[in-house]
């Protein structure tokens, strides 16, 4: 078994696409709008180094898929920062931090030493939380 796709909600797919490709530097994998599905837009992105895994950027649907009150609750939960969580790893967090910060990525934690490695955190425009971590080798007992 492998993870091939994982989804996050986004407030605005165009804004999300600009962020993930323009600021994070990820690839656009698919951008397909399906009229037969009421205009549903299948939008996926992913890091160039990891072609086998894509992140699905899902718009929050309205009725009849999702009732308006529930859609509002999801928007609110995300905006409060309790939506998606993605943990990224990198071989050089300090370099990645400088590069992404220069492109305007909203970091909530600058790289810091932790017991497990060097760790930082940023948010996407919708409030989804990403950690960017350089893992330290830990001997397994």
């Amino acid at each position, binding site marked *: 078994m492998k993870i091939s796709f994982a989804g996050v909600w986004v407030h605005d797919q165009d804004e999300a696409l600009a962020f993930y490709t323009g600021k994070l530097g990820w690839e656009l994998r698919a951008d397909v709008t399906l009229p037969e599905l009421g205009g549903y837009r299948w939008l996926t992105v992913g890091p160039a180094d990891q072609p086998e895994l894509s992140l699905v950027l899902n718009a929050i649907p309205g009725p009849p898929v999702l009732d308006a009150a529930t859609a509002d609750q999801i928007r609110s939960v995300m905006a409060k920062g309790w939506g998606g969580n993605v943990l990224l790893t990198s071989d050089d967090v300090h370099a990645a931090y400088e590069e992404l910060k220069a492109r305007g990525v909203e970091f909530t934690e600058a790289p810091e030493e932790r017991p*497990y490695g060097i760790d930082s955190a940023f948010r996407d425009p919708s409030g989804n939380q990403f*950690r960017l971590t350089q893992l330290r080798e830990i001997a397994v007992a």
Partner: protein
Amino acid sequence: MRLVPPERHLLRARDLVDARYADRLGVADLARAAGLSRAHFSREFRRAFGESPHAYLLTRRLERAAALLRATDRPVTAICFTVGLRSLGSFTTSFTRAYGMTPTAYRAAFPPASQHARIPACVLRAHGRPQYRTFREAGRAPRP
């Protein structure tokens, strides 16, 4: 359609507390991060997150202090100042109210930090923050 919920702006203020709790942060700084007027900001923050900006800042400082007590052998006074609190007396009082024991007793009750390795920092921060307690509530049992 671009629809940014107002909470997204309030989240910037909460993130600012999480990032700069050690600094002299005032409500004005937080309101600025959220792009709101001071009076409006405090009301909206409480509405969105269920507690005042002040309560969030204090409990974030206490959570950071608790983490340093568990993970380091630095003196309690140094930890108090490191997390942005400026009175050791009120730190001890607030900490005891939040965690049900003094900072020194708390430190003695926990094993060394290495046993907590690999739990991401965001999880530690979110789940380690104590409930905000006022003097009136001090008699009730604290959260474990």
